[in-house]
């Protein structure tokens, strides 16, 4: 258990990359990017975790009770917003691409070769 979460983080990164590289559809690709990003959530979460720690909310819990790290959680909140916004922007681009090129398959787009 002491290493398993880290391994999951690495797996998510690699599987996300795999999805991106093999994708035949930009919408699919953007979703894979979101999966890749979730690797960073798992990484940060497991770094800040403490066995037996409470959540860093001291409402009804005395200050000084062992708690997990609040900093990584704040970082993850930022990370989640980044995810949402990046996905939104890339989806907007994919939408427009489909409108003009009538395809979302990277294999069928040849305009930027060489």
């Amino acid at each position: 258990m002491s290493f398993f979460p880290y391994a999951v983080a690495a797996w998510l990164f690699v599987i996300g990359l795999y999805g991106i590289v093999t994708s035949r559809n930009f919408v699919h690709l953007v979703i894979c990017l979101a999966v890749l990003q979730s690797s960073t959530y798992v990484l940060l979460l497991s770094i800040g975790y403490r066995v037996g720690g409470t959540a860093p909310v001291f409402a009804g819990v005395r200050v000084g009770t062992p708690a997990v790290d609040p900093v990584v959680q704040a970082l993850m909140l930022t990370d989640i917003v980044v995810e949402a916004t990046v996905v939104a922007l890339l989806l907007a681009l994919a939408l427009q691409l489909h409108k003009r090129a009538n395809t979302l398959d990277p294999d069928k787009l040849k305009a930027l070769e060489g």
Partner: protein
Amino acid sequence: MLFLQFTILSFVAVTATAVVLTRDPAKQAIGISFYGLVMALMFFIFQAPDVALSQIVIGAVALPLMILLALTKIRRHEEEQRERKEKKAA
């Protein structure tokens, strides 16, 4: 507790893999919504309620919604193109 953590993490890994291997974006949108919920559950189990709440509203609702809206648009555009072609052929 340990067992719970182990289970949820395995579940995250499996769901993620399934989402990536689903090649149809429309099915994937449902998949990513489910994945968002699983992630949120993981955050709860790992004592991160703030993040879990964010993950539910973003990962399980807002994101899949945007994807579905984009897909609707793309499908309509495809239909329109097909109609246009058929019209030309006829």
